[in-house]
């Protein structure tokens, strides 16, 4: 399944990019799993699909990572991302959310697994064939963890790094 290849994409792309990385330097996130090509143009097919869905007036910026085109725009003061496959099919939607907005099951599940940890940022990702997943950047003791949980409380840890 093509989606498996880039399932982690949005977690790293967004949790790091929108994570207000304290260092302020270049974001190391996407480099782990993907490279953001420079100078690559978004497929007109995808652009047209986006315009059809969201209107031509929306101010959008594009990234292409591992053949996934990501449209980022602001709607009602909220940053939103739409992820497209090459063929124009929508892979998913995502947006950063406040940690207080996490569904109860998700926050309970994360708190149980990472007790005493601090959730820094959260990203909600909806895709066609699986439940909504919530990616979180968590400080757990001396580690930085990127974990995700779905609405059934199933947790996946995508990255665990010792904080220097």
């Amino acid at each position, binding site marked *: 399944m093509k989606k498996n290849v880039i399932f982690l994409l949005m977690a790293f792309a967004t949790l790091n990019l929108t994570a207000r990385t304290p260092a302020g330097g270049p974001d190391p996130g996407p480099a782990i799993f993907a490279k953001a090509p420079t100078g690559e143009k978004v497929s007109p097919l995808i652009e047209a699909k986006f315009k059809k869905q969201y209107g031509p007036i929306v101010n959008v910026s594009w990234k292409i990572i591992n053949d996934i085109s990501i449209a980022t725009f602001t709607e009602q003061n909220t940053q939103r991302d739409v992820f497209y496959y090459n063929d124009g099919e*929508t892979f998913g*939607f995502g947006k950063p959310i406040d940690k207080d907005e996490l569904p109860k099951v998700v926050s309970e599940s994360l708190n149980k697994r990472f007790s005493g940890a601090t959730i820094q940022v959260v990203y909600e990702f*909806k*895709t*066609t*064939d*699986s*439940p*909504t997943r919530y990616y979180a950047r968590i400080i757990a003791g001396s580690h930085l963890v990127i974990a995700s949980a*779905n*609405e*059934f409380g199933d947790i996946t840890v995508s990255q665990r790094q010792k904080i220097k």
Partner: protein
Amino acid sequence: MKKNVIFLLPAFLSLSLFAKTTLSEAQNPVFGLFAKTLKGGKVNPVIESKFKQQYGNLVNVSWSIIDDLSDVHITIATFTVDGVESEVYYYDDGEIFGVGKSIKRDLLPENVVKSLNARFRSGVIQTAYEFKERSSSTRYYVRLVTPRHTMIVSANEFGDTKVYQKEKLKHIFE
């Protein structure tokens, strides 16, 4: 896949009759369309303990058990948390099939409303039910009325709509 057999369940459960048929009650005619309510059946202790583990001992829960033509049993726990009535759907082995709740139509995601409006221009959404499943995206089941028909439709946030039941409205002057 066992889930396919009972895919339509939540829609009919909640949209048609807001069923909550308990084991002791008469058979719900809605189930008759796709499934039948088991009478005298007891809730599987595995499921009951799983529910208690998840939601606590103190939750006041009512149970329904339904099956379909292929003998897939689904046990439904209905309970209220923070003033909101929810259902959890379990397979026989205690695995969760999904969780659902009735929602106000104003709370339907924008993409869902757009899809429904595009497909049923003159339709009015009467009731809505949110169903979250382990193996797919959240679906919203709605009971929709057009000038000529009443129907049960579901949509996800990716523009996929499905019609499950369509009935012609009988007007008084007909």
